[in-house]
């Protein structure tokens, strides 16, 4: 009993302790890094979706770094080195994050600082391997929108699809099929993408309606299962939207044709067919 209380106390105290590393105050750009960068990058904790940024301020010129942070789209296609990196990191393109010059300078300073001192730049993460069936089921409900996000964000299915959702007409086609997103982003990356999405559109949609850690965990559990193909085959009846529309339209036409079937039958032809007896 006492041991458990001790462990719990340590767990709660841990982030406070690490954030207060060194002189006790985190670097002023930590928040920016956590929301905008940490979903793909770490400083000294190894590669995630994108490369580890430790020591990058020494390897690259500040101008290049500033451009890369501020508007990566300018370099992604033109700079051969960046293209090589892109190929290395699964062709996941770094989005333009909409940062101003001040924030960019702060981030460069943070990377330089944290390359030498240990910083706490990612929130604590509950690994998806801890998830049980129930979590994945909750995640599926959140994905489909049968359960609501606490902060009122729209359900994933509005834009995304996962093969084998079990939903009649499948998910949305506005954004990527995220069946294998777990493989692309990894557990950390996925958590960050869910809670602090740096993709411009998702950022806009979820900026004011962030997901809670529990919701992100449930979704990760669901997407982890999806990635492993656990749901394959569950979507036997899954139809594309155009196909469903077509079938619906045909059904409506058949209904109308039945309802108004007497419309063009005429009078004389019926009379003659019935030999003059009232039909």
């Amino acid at each position, binding site marked *: 009993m006492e041991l458990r209380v001790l462990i719990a106390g340590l767990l709660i105290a841990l982030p406070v302790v690490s954030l207060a590393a060194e002189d006790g105050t985190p670097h002023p750009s930590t928040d920016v890094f956590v929301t905008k960068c940490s979903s793909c990058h770490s400083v000294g904790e190894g590669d995630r979706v994108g490369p580890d940024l430790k020591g990058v301020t020494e390897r690259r010129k500040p101008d290049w770094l500033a451009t890369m942070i501020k508007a990566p789209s300018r370099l992604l296609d033109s700079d051969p080195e960046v293209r090589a990196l892109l190929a290395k990191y699964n062709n996941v393109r770094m989005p333009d994050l909409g940062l101003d010059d001040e924030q960019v300078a702060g981030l460069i300073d943070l990377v330089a600082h944290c390359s030498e001192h240990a910083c706490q730049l990612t929130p604590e993460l509950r690994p998806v391997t801890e998830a049980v069936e129930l979590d994945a089921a909750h995640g599926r409900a959140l994905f489909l929108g049968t359960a609501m996000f606490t902060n009122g964000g729209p359900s994933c299915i509005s834009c995304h699809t996962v093969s084998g959702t079990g939903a009649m007409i499948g998910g949305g086609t506005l954004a990527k099929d995220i069946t294998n997103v777990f493989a692309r982003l990894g557990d950390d990356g996925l958590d960050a993408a869910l809670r602090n999405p740096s993709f411009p559109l998702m950022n806009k949609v979820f900026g004011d309606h962030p997901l809670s850690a529990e919701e992100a965990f449930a979704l990760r559990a669901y997407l982890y299962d999806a990635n492993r193909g656990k749901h394959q085959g569950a979507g036997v009846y899954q139809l594309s939207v155009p196909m469903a529309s077509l079938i619906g339209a045909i059904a409506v036409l058949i209904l*109308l044709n039945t309802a*108004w079937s*007497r*419309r*063009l*039958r*005429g*009078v*004389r*032809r019926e*009379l*003659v067919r019935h*030999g*003059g007896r*009232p039909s």
Partner: protein
Amino acid sequence: MDVRSQISMVFHLDKCIGCHTCSVACKNVWTDRRGAEYMWWNNVETKPGTGYPTKWEDQEKYKGGFEKKNGGVDLRAVGRIRGAATVFHNPSLPIIDDYYEPFTYTYEDLINAPEGADQPVAKPISMITGEPMKIEAGPNWDDDLGGSPIYAANDPNLDALSSEERTALFEVQRLVFFYLPRICNHCANPACVASCPSGALYKRGEDGIVLLNQERCRGWRFCVTACPYKKTYFNWGTGKSEKCILCYPRLESGQAPACFHSCVGRIRYLGNLLYDADQIVDAINRPDHELVEAQRDMILDPFDPAVIAAARANGLAPDVIEAAQRSPVYKFVKLWSLALPLHAEHRTLPMLFYVPPLLPMMASVGDGIYDTSIDQFLGTIDSYRLPLKYMASLFGAGNEAPVRHALRKQLATRMYRRQVTTDDLEEANVRLALSETDTTAEQAEAIYRLTSLAPFDERFVIPPMHREEAIEMLGDTADAKGLTGLGFREGPQRGA
């Protein structure tokens, strides 16, 4: 009192021989065009019969005319839900087969066919598709009871009869029919005008002719449904509807309409009536059996000084009022109560009136003998070959009284004339027949004259149209001064 002038018609059915000259005259003048081939603005149908289009009187199917509902009178075919559900999909329209698919023959094959062992033949082809077709129907397919068990037996007016009466009607020895020529009735309360969503249909103020503006028509075809007589037609070539215009260009130049002018039986009469438009609402709200009387009550006496003053105050020209005084229609409809509206129960106040045919029993067959001796000259109304109930369904909105009166008055007139010419009837009987129908000897003479002897200008009293006044209402005629007259249709060619 809101006095208006209406050009009105009487068809004397006792004189119609079913020759279709009227129809052909109309067809040649107005509907011999692409898209209008199937239209017969004037048609003649055999009664009993289903007519043209087939069973047009069956409003269960076609939803024409007005009916009493919600404490008032409204179009049978409208309603918020019904209207919205059928706006693009009207189920109450006749299809082309109900009129008939118009056809012609490949006459040129008779001349141009290559030499062969057989005579060349002119094949029937559709005037719509141009393809060879099998002719299955026509606008007078049941003429003279042709196809009787199919067409005549399904006349909706026979519903008024008991099944014994119906059976008796189709015994070979008793077979009976008459002709019913029909044109647009130019109703005082036209359902077509009421139904048109585009405002294309209108009733001319000066003479009550109902016209359809070809520039306003959007082809909704609500008028086709709404007209209980099915006298508006959809032109598939122009995508607009058309109807009888009562030959107004002829009327405006003082000529009778083509169908009137050409009628060989001289059954048609035309003249204007003065009527009180204030009474329309009351007249159409009456129960069915009062409708004929209510419509007759709307018609005003053109000799009444109060009516004349009100008519003058309403802008009617003196010569229009004078024409109404000479109108043969006024005499047949109002003075003599001989002419009756067709299917008044649809509450459109049709302004074409019919003198119902007598159809007396003239002989009987018994023991193999064809016996032409009869007890009484022309028999009694109730023994006539078409039951009164049937006639009442057509001309009395179900009420036998006005039809009985019209038939008895005709009979009295005939008895009177028989007495005058051959003097072989009991004088007391003749006098009784006249007095029972409020007919004086002078009136009987007048009826006889207008029925049998009337020349052209007594049958057609066409009021002056005063188009000059109508035109002045629409614009300043001085605008066109000096712009009309003779000119060159093509520029003169000079030199070579």
